[in-house]
Structures are given as C-alpha cells and as structure tokens.
C-alpha cells in the first residue's frame, strides 16, 4: 500500500482536482484506491458527484474501521472515498487533545490493504495536514504557475522537512505538478522555467488550464469520464504514468 499526500499551503491550486483524477486514473488501471478528504470544504464528494457527508470523524476519532467507513458506492470500480465536511472542524478540536495526534491517520490506515491511498489536504497548516505528512510515503505538490502558489511549494517543502525531523515520517517528495498551465502567457512560462531550474526532475508534466476541469466539478465527474478530449487530462495521464513508475 502506498500512501500519497496531495498538499500545498496555497488554496485554489488544484489539489482536489489532482487527487481525484489521479485516484480515478489509478482505479481505471486496476488499482484499489482510497481517497481521503481532509478538507472541511468537502470538495472530493462534490468532484465525484456524491452526496454531502463525513466519515472522517468516526474514522479518526471514534476509531471506526476503514472498511466500515469507506464509501465504496462512488459509482467507480475500485475507488473508495472517506468524505469530509464542516464537521471536520470539530474533529480538529477533538484531535488536539489526543496523545500522538500526528499519528491518527497512519494508525487508522494500519491493517488495510488498498493499493493506493490518496490524502487530499486542506490548504491550512493544521493537525490533519501534519498527520497526513506523517502517514504518507510520498508527497505530491500541485502548484499554479504564479508567485504565491510557488511560495506555497517552498513552504510545503519546509513543512515536510520539519515533519521528517520531528517524527519518523518516511514521506518524500514525489513531484511537483504545475497546474493551470497556460502556454501562451510569459508568466506561466517564466514560472515553469524557474520551477524546472530549482526542482529539476521533481517537476512533473504540466497540466493545462482547461475549462473541462470546472465543467467536471459542476457535473460531478472526473476528467476521465467527460466527453471530448480535456487538455488537462493529457497532463494528468502523464503524471499518473510517472506516479505508477515510482510506486
């Protein structure tokens, strides 16, 4: 089982879109995949066209087993989800009083065998964010090609470093996915060059800015399920290839 955290401390960079599309892509290729939504916004359920709800509290605080809480009725074969919503805010309060709270996700995942677990992190730095980094084997950082989002990448790598030093986390950077890539603007290009010069082979294929992503969120489908040929899917398919080579 490989646990992957998708995180960036900047919001709106495509974390949920990345998590959901990589997860569904891996499920289509035959892997059993669990997506865990750690964000109070609960957008994973929206992105998959599922009803609002949250299993996170009973999973992490009440100790319910993964196979009982994971929703398998996602309408996609081999893809299960643990949803989140506003009640996750209460979870954070409850978790703050627990011993070894950084371990809550890794403990909850013990003994369950999915091929791939993808943790979709909130943009804020909180207990779930840290717990996700502790539980993960690999970190994927989606980033928009703008200054603020790239600053988020730097902050994220600092967080990873801190977590690695403070805990026994095995989490390592897998890759940085440039999202909302707009090939005709100089700024996108300049930021991609900067990213490539700084992080080299850790920079994964860019995902094109594509209205299909917004359409997919509206209709509750992944890019793999949309009609037509979403440009963004080209990038996600290449990133998935890259991910499957690593794990």
């Amino acid at each position, binding site marked *: 089982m490989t646990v992957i955290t998708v995180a960036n401390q900047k919001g709106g960079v495509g974390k949920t879109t990345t998590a959901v599309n990589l997860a569904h892509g891996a499920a289509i290729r035959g892997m059993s995949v669990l997506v865990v939504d750690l964000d109070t916004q609960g957008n994973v359920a929206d992105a998959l066209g599922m009803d609002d709800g949250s299993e996170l509290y009973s999973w992490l605080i009440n100790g319910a087993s993964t196979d009982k809480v994971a929703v398998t009725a996602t309408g996609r074969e081999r893809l299960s989800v643990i949803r989140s919503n506003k009640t996750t805010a209460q979870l954070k309060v409850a978790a703050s009083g627990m011993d070894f709270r950084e371990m809550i996700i890794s403990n909850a995942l013990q003994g369950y065998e999915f091929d791939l677990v993808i943790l979709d992190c909130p943009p804020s730095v909180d207990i779930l964010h840290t717990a996700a980094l502790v539980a993960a084997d690999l970190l994927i950082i989606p980033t928009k090609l703008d200054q603020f989002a790239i600053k988020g990448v730097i902050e994220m790598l600092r967080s990873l470093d801190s977590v690695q030093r403070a805990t026994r986390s095995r989490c390592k950077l897998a890759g940085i996915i440039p999202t909302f890539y707009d090939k005709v603007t100089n700024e996108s290009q300049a930021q*991609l060059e900067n990213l490539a010069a700084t992080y080299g082979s850790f*920079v*994964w294929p860019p995902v094109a800015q594509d209205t299909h992503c917004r359409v997919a969120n509206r209709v509750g489908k992944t890019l793999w399920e949309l009609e037509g040929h979403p440009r963004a899917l080209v990038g996600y398919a290449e990133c998935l290839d890259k991910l499957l080579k690593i794990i």
Partner: protein
Amino acid sequence: MKDANGFLNGNLDPAVQAALGSGNQRRNERAMPKKARANLKKSQAKQEARNGSRAVYDLDPELIKAIKKIADELCTPASQVAGIALHLFLQAYERGDVDPSIYKVPLDRNPRYEYKLVWETD
C-alpha cells in the same frame, strides 16, 4: 533511472522540456517586430510545405463533416482518417476497382484544367 530511494532522477521530464522549448520559441517570436514575425510565419509555412507532410485540398463541406464525425468516433485526428481513406482509395485505384474518370465533367475557360470531377449523390 531510479535513485536509492526509488525516485526517478536525471534530466527534466520530456513533457516539461517540450513545454519549456515551445514556450521559449513562442516568446522569441512575440519579441520580434511585426514584419519579421510575418516573414517567419511565411517561411515556416513554406518549410512545412517543403517537408511534404501537409497539403491543402478544396473539399465539399459535407465531406469534411463526415470525416470529422468518423474521427470523433475513433478518437483520432481528422487527418488520420483522411490519410486512411486516401490509402484505401489509392489501393482500390491501383487494383482498378475504382475509376474516377466516370465523374469527369468538362470545364469551360479554365486555363489550367480541362475537367473537374463531380460526385453525384443520387
């Protein structure tokens, strides 16, 4: 190639390299004066024609639509469908299974051609 931690290392990802390469080319073109950019486009078009991989034919819009429809069904570019269709036609032509000359209609006052080929739908 993977390093000790199992990570792929070495050069930039080819997709990133391609994005950077084409971006630089576009940026250089944008920085050119308008006239130079027009000249470059012209010479690029000539180069493509010289490569022999591109041709422009006047076709019936219905034919273009039909090829596009097949291309969508096959999830492939229309050029690929047109290419296969032409291969099939050329093979049939070489075997003598088709005779385009039956579609010939004389042209009046055309300095270059004597006939056009007219496809009768009925």
